[in-house]
């Protein structure tokens, strides 16, 4: 989970041109001025990296990065099994 978050954080920081240290599990997308395009782009980058397709539903229900990462990670682990 930690490694997964680190990768997501790095992707997002690069997209937004900010220091990864500014992003924590508690960071809201609003705080770092990430819009839906940034979020979808991060998810697509993770999909490419892990060769998986995350479900599209309810992406907007996660205003906090950590919550979204947890949801994606749960799905990723389920897919591995």
């Amino acid at each position, binding site marked *: 989970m930690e490694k997964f978050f680190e990768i997501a954080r790095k992707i997002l920081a690069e997209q937004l041109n900010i220091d990864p240290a500014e992003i924590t599990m508690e960071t809201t997308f609003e705080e770092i001025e990430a*819009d839906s395009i940034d979020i979808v*782009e991060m998810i697509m980058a993770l999909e490419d990296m892990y060769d998986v397709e995350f479900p*599209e539903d309810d992406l907007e229900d996660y205003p906090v990065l950590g919550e979204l990462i947890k949801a994606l990670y749960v799905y990723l682990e389920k897919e591995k099994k």
Partner: protein
Amino acid sequence: MKIAIDVMGGDHAPTEIIAGAVEWAKKSNDELLLTGKEDLIAEILQNYTYPADQIHIISASQVIEMDESPAVAMRKKKDASIVVATRLVKEGRADAVLSCGSTGAQMASALFILGRIENIDRPAIVAAIPNRQGSHTFLVDVGANVDCKPQQLLQFALLGKAYAGIDLDINEPRVALLNNGEEETKGNSLATESYSLLKAQAGLNFIGNIEGRDIFSAKADVIVCDGFTGNILLKAIEGLAQEAVQSCLHELEKIPSFLSRFDYSRVGGAPLLGVEGISIVCHGSSKREAVYNGIKTARDCVVKDIVKRQKLALTQSL
């Protein structure tokens, strides 16, 4: 040439979109790939006589509605008409895509399917505003990005400069920042921070701030602003022009030629800059004439090879 048209997007879709496409097919040799609900398109096409070898229906079962979150909807609706149409360009089956539907969905489709040009974060829509010299001043962005960062405004400036260079065939387009005063310190934080970046950019030919009243004066070739401001400004210009046309018709019984140049249905469409393919954004309220002229814009952009030339201009600028 092959142009993909999302016939499901727009206030008058699909009837008026198809009508505009049929008109174009009759007057050109281009092939038009109409994406949308197959049965519905076939039914509407029955009302027309058209060159059958030039109009093809490409089935797309879904539509992205105006009230949906564009990026999320694009992922959810993989068989949406704008997604399918954009994919045709990506796959090399069409040279350009055109839509009158959700601008956000078109932008997201272009960004995620076609991809962005290197060093560009977000695509921007460029609109050609008629100026007093009988030419155009290019306004970037007129609606692709509601919230912008200074770095993005710098990128819009570079894209606008590249596009103006292509369209006006000039070497050093003059770039200005839309603001509420000409002085360097004027404006909100986005304007002042953007000013610093634009001023520092080598080779940009930045001439400073420009006020709204000078848009038509031909003082600048490219005017940069965020998409929220640009969209409001563009629609205010169009609205004022429409009112002026009505007044002229009423009082003079004719329309001065300068005013008729502001009729968006004559312009048709505006290209999305900064993406690896040609995507033409049309007004949501487009009827057949606007669609016809939008296809013409798409054709012009393909002929001028705007993607390759944007990339070349950016390489020279950065």
